[in-house]
């Protein structure tokens, strides 16, 4: 089947003739349903406009509900009214044409020149708004018609739809008469396409009535009908229209007619847009403003963004996620209950018909839910018709079987900020009710397990399944296109686990080691009584050669390389870890150099295998060796506490000195800073230094074996600052990068516990206690103030960066790399870059931005010996 294609969509203004031509019914009756609840002829629910009630048939096309797309009707307006959307344009046109001869207020030659320029721009696909603007500016300024010499009186436009010529008010009828006389050849100068539009159509004489299907009424629980907002508005229009007609026929006074006309104008205006400035929005009985045409289209919840750019899908599931290190990174654990609900189609052929039958006959998990006949009719498989359906199917039918192990599915977590937010996984049907995923894929999804939910989608066609497997699988996204490094990798326990395994020269017994590696797919292990941790890690390494500084590197002035006393210099030769510690820099997400190297040398599947093994090994190690943190992990001996106390006291004294110097006027200001700023900066620096010193003292007493310290230095979680804050001193709290100054402005103090004008550390939010010791009430208050800023910051930032991203996607979405290597904009065909990124290299395949990783290739060719 070849699908139909839409080649193009042209936008034009509907002419009154066109509106009447496409109308199937003239609507004159403001009532909708009669007493029996049957649609009234000539009413807004006229059966010719389509049907929404089940059981009835459309009188135009004969279709039932769901078949009939609906048909337009029309209302003959008793008097012309202005279209609000074009009200401003009408004003410009009135001012731009002669009041008497209705020609454009430009000499012919000038006009021709403008038209020529506009035509040129149209041909070149460029915007000509600036020319049109210039024409309107010039014509408005012209005071005498160049064609007939008539003096021009300015026409004032009053929002939303009123026009005044001097003191005289122009009725829509007057306006329409004027617009009618503007000749076609002048229109292009005003930016109007004479083939698609006549200016008098901006003044409506006939109003299209949208089909009922676009404004279905709903039946409330009470059995009452509740009409759509649009229907309400149309009822208002018809009612006033009829009243206007009756009054005019009865010869009512001019004043009454004018009032009615204005009322009609109001209703038509709000029918188009209920948020026009200058007039009150039309309200529902309950006081809620009506959602009319413009409101339906506009904004995030409008037709364009909610229903047209985003579409709802079937074959999807959503539940909470939880971790399962036993799964591979490209697998996802799916609860049986979900697997029984979601289906994958089997397109029945002579070769698989037996298999399809088996699915239909089965009563539990891998069974079938529906069969689809070649004519598209879906039949539900229930216990009573299993046998029958299994007999019926033949090639050409579709059997919708349950989700099974090995099916491809798309897995997604919102916000979908980058393409790694939707990846293809292979199904593993598991008990319990959550989706399970390997924690190593948390970074690309930015997922954690504190209650996050994720979505699952089942590609239905074979093409979609193939694309998912080839393009979207997790291993294809180990390297991020953002910076050309791995985004999938070890986190938390993976890193501390491998740190425990490989740091120093730990030796493990044969039994222990076998425990560690039994979950991995390592098969050949040299037989020994004991192994070092580094040997164990080497088992899972493929043949790679690598040399780098680990995360725990202290940044010594002179690197001692393999003799590093911190065991921070990693050397891997031919797949053997010779020295150094494996930590975040080696296997972590975003950093992992080993993952990077394997992915480049052996490809994505090997990298996937390594990550699987690495995570499994790390988890075994960390569970085997044990790794905990408790309150006593942040305890330090009394002497350390005294030292810290000393440091802080010293700093406080120094701050006092600074304040005294400031008060006495002895403080030397820094260049370009005021005295106050200088004082603040020096105090902040002094207190910051004190906290760092306290932290140093604390970490000296905690030692390298402390769990919190191990987590911080290996990069598993947290930083040394966090440890410092737990153990020694929390330090200065800040709001907007300054010490906390807010509070009682008139007395210049942050809290009534202090003297007015107190600048000391305590009065300005310095927290000298540690989290373990606990905060004093005042400190707690300041800490909360600082913490609040962080929360506000995050809230503001997400909305701002979200909008930035939306704008960027909208601006750049149509750019693609062509076969000739250029980057072009799809809609206009403009060449944006002659060669993508100046060298044509894919950032994902590049080595951290470099087109070719020369050093690695050199190593490959020359061998690791040299270098």
């Amino acid at each position: 089947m070849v699908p139909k294609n839409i080649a193009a969509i042209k936008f034009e203004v509907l002419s009154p003739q066109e509106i009447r031509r496409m109308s199937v019914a003239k609507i004159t009756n403001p009532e909708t349903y009669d007493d029996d609840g049957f649609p009234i002829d000539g009413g807004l629910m006229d059966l010719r406009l389509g049907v929404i009630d089940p059981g009835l048939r459309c009188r135009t096309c004969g279709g039932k509900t769901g078949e009939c797309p609906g048909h337009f009707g029309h209302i003959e307006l008793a008097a012309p009214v202005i279209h609000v959307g074009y009200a401003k344009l009408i004003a410009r046109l009135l001012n731009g044409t002669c009041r008497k001869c209705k020609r454009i207020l430009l000499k012919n030659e000038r006009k021709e020149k403008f038209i020529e320029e506009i035509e040129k721009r149209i041909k070149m696909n460029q915007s000509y708004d600036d020319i049109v603007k210039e024409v309107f500016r010039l014509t408005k300024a012209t005071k005498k018609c160049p064609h007939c010499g008539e003096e021009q009186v300015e026409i004032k436009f009053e929002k939303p739809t009123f026009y005044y010529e001097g003191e005289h008010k122009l009725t829509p009828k007057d306006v329409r008469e004027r617009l009618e006389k503007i000749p076609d050849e002048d229109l292009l100068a005003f930016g109007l396409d004479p083939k698609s539009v006549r200016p008098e159509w901006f003044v409506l004489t006939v109003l299209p009535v949208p089909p009922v299907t676009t404004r279905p009424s709903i039946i409330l629980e009470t059995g009452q009908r509740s009409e759509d907002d649009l229907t309400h508005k149309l009822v208002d229009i018809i009612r006033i229209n009829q009243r206007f007609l009756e009054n005019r026929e009865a010869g009512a006074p001019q004043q009454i007619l004018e009032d009615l006309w204005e009322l009609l104008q109001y209703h038509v205006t709000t029918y188009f847009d209920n948020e026009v400035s200058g007039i009150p929005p039309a309200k529902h009985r309950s006081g809620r403003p009506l959602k009319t045409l413009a409101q339906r289209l506009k904004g995030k919840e409008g037709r364009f963004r909610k229903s047209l750019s985003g579409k709802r899908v079937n074959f999807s599931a959503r539940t909470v996620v939880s971790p399962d290190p036993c799964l591979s990174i490209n697998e996802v654990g799916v609860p049986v209950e979900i697997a029984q609900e979601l289906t994958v189609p089997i397109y029945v052929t002579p070769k698989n018909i037996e298999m399809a039958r088996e699915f239909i006959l089965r009563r539990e998990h891998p069974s079938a839910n529906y069969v689809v006949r070649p004519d598209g009719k879906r039949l539900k498989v229930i216990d009573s018709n299993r046998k029958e359906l299994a007999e019926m199917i033949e090639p050409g039918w579709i059997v919708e079987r349950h989700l099974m192990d090995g099916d491809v599915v798309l897995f997604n977590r919102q916000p979908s900020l980058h393409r790694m937010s939707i990846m293809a996984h292979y199904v593993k049907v598991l008990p319990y009710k959550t989706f399970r995923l390997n924690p190593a894929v948390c970074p690309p999804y930015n997922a954690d397990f504190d209650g996050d939910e994720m979505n699952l989608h089942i590609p239905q066609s074979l093409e979609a399944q193939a694309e998912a497997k080839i393009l979207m699988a997790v291993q294809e996204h180990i390297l991020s296109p953002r910076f050309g490094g791995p985004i999938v990798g070890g986190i938390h326990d993976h890193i501390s686990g491998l740190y425990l395994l490989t740091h120093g020269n730990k030796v493990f017994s044969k039994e222990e080691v076998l425990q560690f590696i039994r979950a991995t797919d390592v098969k050949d292990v040299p037989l020994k009584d004991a192994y070092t941790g580094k040997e164990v890690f080497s088992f899972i390494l493929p043949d790679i050669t690598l040399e780098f500084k680990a995360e725990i590197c202290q940044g010594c002035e002179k690197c001692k390389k393999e003799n590093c006393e911190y065991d921070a210099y990693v050397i891997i030769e031919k797949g053997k870890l010779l020295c150094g510690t494996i930590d975040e820099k080696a296997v972590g997400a975003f950093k992992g150099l080993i993952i990077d190297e394997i992915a480049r040398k052996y490809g994505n599947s090997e990298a996937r295998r390594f990550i699987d093994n690495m995570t499994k090994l790390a988890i075994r190690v960390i569970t085997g060796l044990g790794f905990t943190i408790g309150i006593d992990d942040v305890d330090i001996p009394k002497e350390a506490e005294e030292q810290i106390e000393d440091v802080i006291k010293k700093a406080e004294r120094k701050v006092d000195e600074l304040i005294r110097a400031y008060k006495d006027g002895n403080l030397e200001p820094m260049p370009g800073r005021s005295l106050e700023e200088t004082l603040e900066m020096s105090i902040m620096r002094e207190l910051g230094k004190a906290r760092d010193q306290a932290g140093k003292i604390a970490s000296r007493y905690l030692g390298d074996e402390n769990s919190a310290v191990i987590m911080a230095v290996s990069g598993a979680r947290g930083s040394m600052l966090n440890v410092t804050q737990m153990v020694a001193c929390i330090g200065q709290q800040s709001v907007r990068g300054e010490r906390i100054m807010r509070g009682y402005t008139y007395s210049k103090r942050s809290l009534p516990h202090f003297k007015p004008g107190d600048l000391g550390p305590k009065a300005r939010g310095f927290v000298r206690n540690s989290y373990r010791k606990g905060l004093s009430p005042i400190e707690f208050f300041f800490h909360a103030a600082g913490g609040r800023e962080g929360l506000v910051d995050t809230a503001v930032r997400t909305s701002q960066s979200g909008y930035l991203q939306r704008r960027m996607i909208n601006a750049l979405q149509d750019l693609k790399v062509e076969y000739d290597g250029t980057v072009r904009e799809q809609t206009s065909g403009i060449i944006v870059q002659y060669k993508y990124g100046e060298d044509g290299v894919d950032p994902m395949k590049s080595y951290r931005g470099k087109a070719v990783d020369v050093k690695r290739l050199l190593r490959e060719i020359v061998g690791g010996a040299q270098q």
Partner: protein
Amino acid sequence: MIDKILSKYPFPESVKLEIKEELEKLNLSADKIKALVDRCYKAYTQNLMEPEEAAGIVAAQSIGEPGTQMTMRTFHYAGVAELNVTLGLPRLIEILDARKTPSTPMMTIKLLPEYAKDREKAKEIANKIEATYLKDIAEIEADIKNMKIIIKPDRKMMDVKELKMDVLKKKIEKSLKVDVFEEDEKLIIQVEPSYKKLIDIFEKLKDLVVAGIKEIRRVIIRKEGDEYVLYTEGSNLKKVIKVPGVDFTRTLTNDVWEIYEVLGIEAARNAIIKEALETLEEQGLEVDPRHIMLVADVMTVDGELRQIGRHGVAGEKQSILARAAFEMTVNNLLEAAIKGEIDYLRGITENIIVGQPIKLGTGDIEVTYKFGGKR
């Protein structure tokens, strides 16, 4: 020899340089060099972007995604503690919005060799550039009784700024269009008997810049390596590069619009890339420069600086549906109707809206099958 081998391969310059650099460190035989270059070329061709890749979307995501991790605050400029510079997300938004003036305009002025080494000479130039306000060098008094304004210049300050009395007098006369009398080291302005006018002139005098460049509120001199560099708060590239002693080839501003106006569109493109990269880098976020290049190129393709947003790239799309789906839905549709515009459905959003496959990646590929071919 290396050059000769390299010249046969269509590498980008940067790769050639790197290969050469690496090879020169080692002394390899011609065979090995050939083998390496060959291998590099193979790797290079493998690393190329594939056709039909949605380069734009990847770029937008790569810049947008780290946006969530950026900070919001203004920080002190790395190195120069005296200057406040907008960084993080607000700065990135500012760059991509192509704002006419950044919230914290700043210049880095390098000096010509004869000025750069000498602190005094650098100071001289700094004085020429920094705006000097009348209120900084003189006391201004309003004598309401006699309807006079008396300006008492401070000798010392005048000397520091190398200003002469008559120059000051002329400057005031020229910019305020009033007559100024000199009377024993004082400048007096006689105002017509109008109290309002007196206050008016008084206020204007306070903000009068008598020397230097108005936009540049402060100059800081710092030694960097063996040369003195000027950092300024405020920016005016056009005037600064004309100041003698300024090395305009190495002088920078963070105001992209100014660079566009003074140095042209290519310079503006490079400025966008540099500023955006620096902003991201400062936050510790790694983003490939190619993504930023693409964004900068889109902003500057048609020779004008266009913002990423409704008044720029996204708002000037050819497709009506894409524009309507972005922002200002109703206006875009009404406008399109009077112009009789046609949407040829070539882009992404348009095709999503009408429910057709998009023309990107596998969506733009069709497979034809020839029946009756050889078995």
